[in-house]
């Protein structure tokens, strides 16, 4: 059992947990993820490691409530427990001194980009972060980002904060004006794909962190296979980060829709049941 030491609400349906998992905290590096299972009937879901405190043995996860498991996770309380928690999984981000780096994040991807930015800054890079959200209320972790980025820019769909438009509008401005050595993107697939298309024109190396459906997360099942440069790769052991210009995005989008109907059944079921029991949601 893994104890939830600290719980915070970062925004609408976005929650943060610090979880006691000393081994994982000690060995985790930027770009890696964990797989957790809430209880005996739960599914295994991957979540990126947002932060660690090796001294206290804590791992931070930040998640958006989108499906049954994340909603249920959100109901757990500080001092409560998660049944299973394994990590760090996946290859860490390759951190080098690239020079001028732009990190693009969308939605809850903001949490996932934090440790990468930290590591890149420590390696001597200049990091500009471009963060997108539908509106101002959905922006999370602004304070943390301000502390670690050289430059921070926001894009909202409705213009309620930063530039009105998409992260790609801002990114285009940047790469038109200055020479960027590498772009790192993490967020919804359509966003990562749009970033990939944009940087491909200018031939700027771009890394993305992919989120395919996963089960065991140790290379055993092949559920998370993605086609990169025409070859099948397992995102859990060979990724989750890949060269954005070589990813077969159409296939990834299709594979993410695999269980959409069943996921809806699961969520509806859960919401109906929790309404009956305690009248919440």
């Amino acid at each position, binding site marked *: 059992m893994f104890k939830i030491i600290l719980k915070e609400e970062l925004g609408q349906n976005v929650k943060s947990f610090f979880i006691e998992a000393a081994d994982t905290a000690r060995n985790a590096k930027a770009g890696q993820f964990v797989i957790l299972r809430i209880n005996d009937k739960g599914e295994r879901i991957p979540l990126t490691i947002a932060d660690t405190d090796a001294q206290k043995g804590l791992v931070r996860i930040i998640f958006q409530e989108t499906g049954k498991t994340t909603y249920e996770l959100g109901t757990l309380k500080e001092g409560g427990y998660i049944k299973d928690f*394994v990590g760090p999984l996946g290859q860490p981000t390759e951190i080098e001194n690239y020079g001028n780096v732009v990190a693009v994040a969308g939605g809850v991807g903001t949490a996932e980009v934090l440790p990468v930015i930290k590591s890149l800054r420590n390696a001597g890079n200049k990091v500009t972060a471009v963060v997108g959200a539908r509106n101002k209320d959905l922006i999370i972790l602004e304070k943390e980002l301000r502390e670690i980025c050289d430059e921070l820019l926001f894009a909202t769909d409705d213009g309620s904060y930063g530039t009105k438009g998409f992260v790609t509008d801002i990114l285009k401005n940047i790469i038109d004006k200055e020479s960027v050595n590498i772009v790192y993107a993490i967020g919804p697939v359509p966003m990562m794909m749009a970033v990939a298309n944009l940087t491909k024109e200018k031939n700027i190396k771009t890394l993305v962190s992919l989120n395919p459906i996963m089960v065991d997360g140790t290379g055993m099942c092949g559920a998370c296979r993605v086609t990169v440069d025409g070859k099948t790769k397992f995102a859990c052991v060979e990724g989750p980060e890949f060269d954005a210009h070589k990813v077969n995005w159409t296939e990834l989008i*299709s594979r993410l829709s695999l269980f959409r109907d069943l996921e809806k059944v699961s969520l509806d*079921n859960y919401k109906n049941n929790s309404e009956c029991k305690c009248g919440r949601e």
Partner: protein
Amino acid sequence: MRQRMKMPERLPNERNKDFLQVNIGYTRKQMLEEAKRCLQCKKPFCVEGCPVEINIPKFIKELSDDNPAQAIKIIKQKNNLPAVCGRVCPQESQCEKYCILSRKGESVGIGNLERYSADWAAANAQKKTSPSDINKNGIKIAIIGSGPAGLTAAGDLANMGYEVTVFESLHDIGGVLRYGIPEFRLPLDVLEIEIGNLKSMGIEFILNTLVGRTKTVKELFEEDFKSIFIGTGAGLPVFLGIEGENLNHIYSANEFLVRVNLMRAFDFPNYDTPVYKGKNIVIIGGGNTAMDSARTALRLGASSVKLVYRRTENEMPARKEERLHAQEEGIEFITLTNPVKFIGDEKGFVKAVECIKMELGEPDESGRRRPKKVEGSNFGIEADMAILALGLNPNPVLPSLTEGLNTDSHGYLIIDDNYMTSIPGVFAGGDIVGGDTVIQAMGMGKQAAKRINEYLKNLHPTNN
């Protein structure tokens, strides 16, 4: 010569709808009759055919005297997982193959008798070995992986007095025994009893630990583990590399079986993990895993399950019993056939498998005749789900993250005659070094345990 007592089994049309055991097990009367068939050979060849060297004539003698309590004791001297082995070992190519009776008729049903002994012990709550029964020597040993190799090594080392800790990356114990073998062949409660016996010996299990990532081999040594056994198995599923292979509802057998067996997806949405329940399903492969996948798919409600294999049924690696059971239950075998591409609908879901007919040519290095394409013989099979059961490659995670741990060109760990890897004190066995079946993995776990003991005795002569 009296005929071998047939293992009683449930009717095909009844059993293919649920996950209850296919084989029911001998009654006492059947057991006695079968045990009495054993000739009690002076030179028992059957034992030579047993990877864990069970004293087969001796335990069968006890059974024939109607003394199962003594029989299980004899088995347990060599085998910590008799209820598992009695069910899933390919006895026909091991102990039973060497049985003298098989020269003239049918061999003794050694596996069935082993199963009877283990099931009798479980039903009659035999006193478990407790840690106080064993002289502890205080030396810590780490086992990585809780599959058949790891569990066997753990059991043997605990019996020798070592303080054994097993690390497992998944959230439950058993490895392939839990996620890979369906309940109609190996019920979970049977596995739980075997694991319970190991726990009662004082073996500690630490779950959710992917050694290499969560904890390194170096850290294990720093935590004062004096020796390490690696039994991480063959992790990576093999894919064909043909067009359309990543279409939706094309699964590796591992993914399909993990969803159903480990994650209980057959009981969705009561359990949270989903699985697609296909109607027309194509399985590709001819091993036990292919049979398990096909029969599981059928039990989830498929109306047609076709098994496509590139050689003939004679060359299939699956056990004869499993092939027979599969066919009786309604699995259609399409042999001398290989898929060439998967065809999808506009949304990316598989709708057909294009296959080509094959013929057998000259023997290859494995001695089996090599299948060749019959050009122009392409044909399509309609399918809304396909499962690839083509074998596994060794899991690269631990070797790639452990400096000095050498692998061969296929990714298997290299071990010496003493089961030791390229790192002193680190031993390995099972699929990660190329072992193939459950019992081979167990045999290797057993041998490795012996060598670990010798190694540690040499290191710490004072503990002798």
